[in-house]
C-alpha cells in the first residue's frame, strides 16, 4: 500500500528538509567557530528519514526521536529558537539548561518524548506510549527511531518481541547509516539487512531508501495506518549514510572518501528539490525563495538564542521531582 501526498504536502516536505539542513549547517558552523557549548550532533544525510517519518504521523501520535532526527523535532512543532537555546544551555531551551544538544528535547504538549543517551532506551518508552493508547482504545500510534548500532542491543530485540506480543500500535524506524560511531556495519553484525530482525519477532519489516523522502513517508504512513487499524507493529529500515562525523568533534577519517562521494550524489535534500522542479511542482525561483526563508528563519533563531539568558544557578535543584 502506498500513501501519497498532494502537491502542498510535497512542498511541505521540501520546506521541512531545507529548514532542517539550514539549522544543521548552522549548528556545525557555530560549533566550529567556537560559539557552541559542549558538543553537538549533525544529522546531515538523515533529513529525509527524520522529516518523512515525522510528517507521516497524525497530530495526536507520539514520537520519540533520537540524535539524528533534528528534522523530526522541527516537523512536529518544536521551534528552532527552543532547539538552539537548548543547545546553548539557555533558560529558554527545552530543558532549561539541564540537558545537552538534542538530548532531552521532550515536550508532551507536542507529543514528543525526549531521549536519554543510553541507546536505545527510547524504544520501550515509545512502546509503552503505544500500549497506553491501546489500553485506552485511542486511535493513536507511537513511533520511534534507532540506529544500526543500537539495533544490536538486547533491548532492541526485547522491545520488538514485546511490541509483537502486545500487538501494539508501534512503529520503529531504523536509521541504517552504515556506522555506529567509528564501527562499520560489517563489524557490528553478520547480516546485510537489519530488517531481517523484524520477522524473527513477528513484526512486519520493510526496507526503504532513506534518502528518498517520499519513499520514507509512504512506508511510514502505511505502517502508521496499519498500527492505527490494530494490525500491530512495524519496522522500517531506512538505508542512508551519516555524512559527517559521529558528533562535532569527530572528523570521521575512518570513513572511506569514496563512500561519502557516492552518497553525496544522492543528497536527500537536493534530491527532493530536484524531483519537485523536474515534475514542475516547484520553480527555481520558488526554490530560491524557500531557501531564503529558511535561512532568515534560522538566522533569527540564532540571534534569539544567543541573546537569551543563561539559567540562574539558584534554579539548579528545581524539578528533580514532580510535585
Amino acid at each position, binding site marked *: 500500500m502506498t500513501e501519497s501526498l498532494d502537491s502542498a504536502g510535497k512542498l511541505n516536505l521540501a520546506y521541512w528538509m531545507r529548514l532542517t539542513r539550514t539549522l544543521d549547517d548552522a549548528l556545525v558552523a557555530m560549533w566550529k567557530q567556537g560559539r557552541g557549548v559542549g558538543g553537538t550532533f549533525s544529522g546531515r544525510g538523515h533529513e529525509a528519514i527524520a522529516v518523512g517519518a515525522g510528517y507521516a504521523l497524525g497530530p495526536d501520535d507520539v514520537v520519540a526521536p533520537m540524535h539524528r532526527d533534528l528534522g523530526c523535532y522541527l516537523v512536529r512543532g518544536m521551534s528552532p529558537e527552543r532547539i538552539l537555546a537548548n543547545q546553548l544551555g539557555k533558560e529558554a531551551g527545552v*530543558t532549561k539548561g539541564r540537558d545537552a544538544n538534542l538530548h532531552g528535547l521532550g515536550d508532551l504538549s507536542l507529543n514528543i518524548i525526549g531521549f536519554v543517551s543510553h541507546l536505545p532506551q527510547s524504544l520501550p*518508552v515509545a512502546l509503552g*506510549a503505544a*500500549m497506553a493508547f491501546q489500553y485506552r482504545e485511542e486511535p493513536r500510534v507511537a513511533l520511534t527511531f534507532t540506529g544500526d548500532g543500537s539495533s544490536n542491543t538486547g533491548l532492541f530485540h526485547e522491545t520488538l*518481541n*514485546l511490541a509483537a506480543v502486545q500487538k501494539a500500535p508501534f512503529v520503529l524506524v531504523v536509521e541504517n547509516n552504515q556506522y555506529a560511531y567509528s564501527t562499520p556495519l560489517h563489524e557490528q553484525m553478520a547480516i546485510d539487512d537489519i530488517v531481517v530482525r523484524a520477522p524473527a519477532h513477528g513484526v512486519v519489516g520493510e526496507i526503504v531508501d532513506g534518502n528518498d523522502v517520499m519513499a520514507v513517508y509512504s512506508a511510514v504512513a502505511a505502517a502508521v495506518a496499519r498500527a492505527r487499524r490494530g494490525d500491530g507493529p512495524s519496522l522500517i529500515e531506512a538505508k542512508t549514510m551519516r555524512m559527517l562525523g559521529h558528533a562535532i568533534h569527530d572528523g570521521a577519517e575512518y570513513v572511506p572518501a569514496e563512500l561519502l562521494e557516492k552518497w553525496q550524489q544522492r543528497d536527500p535534500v537536493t534530491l527532493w528539490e530536484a524531483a519537485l522542479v523536474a515534475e514542475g511542482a516547484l520553480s527555481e525561483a520558488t526554490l530560491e525563495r524557500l531557501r531564503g526563508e529558511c535561512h532568515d528563519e534560522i538566522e533569527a533563531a540564532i540571534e534569539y538564542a544567543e541573546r537569551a539568558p543563561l539559567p540562574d544557578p539558584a534554579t539548579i535543584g528545581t524539578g528533580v521531582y*514532580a510535585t
Partner: protein
Amino acid sequence: MTEIRHLTYLDAIAEALSVEMERDPNVVVLGTDVGGSFGGAFKVTKRVATQFGPRRVRNMPMTELAFIGAASGMALMGMRPVVEVQFADFISTGFDSIVQFAATTHYRWGAAVPWVIRAPSDGGIRSGPFHSQNPEAWFVHTPGLKVVAPATPADAKGMLLASIRDDNPVIYFEAKPLYRSLKGPVPDGSEAIPIGVARIAQEGDDVTIVTYGSTVHDSVQAAAELAGDGVTVEVIDLRSLKPMDTDAILESVAKTGRALVVHAANRMAGVGAEIAAFIAEEAFGHLDAPVRRLGGMDIPIPFSPPLEDTYRVSAYDIVRTVREMVAW
C-alpha cells in the same frame, strides 16, 4: 467508620492494589507471571488478576528492561503502571531504564513518570544469592527516584497507595520474609500513608536504632530483650528511604545520644553508611558513643542455612551491639 482488621503483609499489599485499581482506571499491573489464574510467583497479584482480568493485570514476556521502559512510556501518557519484578534481585535487568530514563526525565524536560516498581526483597528463606537481595542502596543513590520499604501490613497498604498516587517513579521494596509470617492491623478504606515520614516503632531513652524493612522486627525483639537489662531502646522505622525523614532521626538521637543503624542489606556503602555519616555531621554534639552500623556481610548472599544465618543481622547481633554502645 474505619474498621480495623488483621491482615498479613502480603494481603495488605494485595488489598492496596485492589483498592487503587478500583479507584483509578489508569492503574495497571505489569510483570512476569502476574496475571491469569497464577497471580504472581508469591501470589501478590492473584486478587487483582481475578478481580480485573488480563487487560489490567498483564503478563509480560521475560523482557524486564523492555517492560520497565514501557511502564515509563505508559506513565508519560498519564497511566500509573505498577510493575512487579519477580524478585528484587532481577531489578538489575531494568537498571538503565530506571536510573537513566525514569529518574532523570522530570529534571531534564519536566515530564512526570508516575510508576511503581514492586520489588520482593530480602532473604532468610534459603533462597540463595539471586533471590535474597536488598538492592535499595543503588536507588537511594539515584536522584529522581523515591524509595520506600514498609515493615508492617498497615504501612505496606498505605505506602503502596501513596506510591501509586505519587507523580514520581517509586521503588517499593516489600520484604518477602514478612509476606505470610507477619500479621497486623490494617485500616479499611483507601487512605495513603505519606512517603517521607518515619514511624517510631518503639519509644525509648537510651539508644536509637534507625532501621527499615524486616530488621524493624529484629530491632523491636532486641529492644524487648534489652529492656531486661534496664536499657530502653527507641526504634525508628524509616518506612521511606528517599526522601528520608532526617528530622525524626535527629530528634531521637538528640534524646538518646546513641545511634545504631540496622539493615538487612550488606553494610558496605549501604543506606546505613549515609545515615551514620548524617548523624556524625548533624548530631555529633549529642553523641555519647560512636555511631554503629549492622548489616549483611560484604559477600554474595550464601544459600546454606548456617552460612545465610551468619550473613544476616540477627536480633542477637543487635542486642550485643547495643550492650557495647551502652558500656562505651
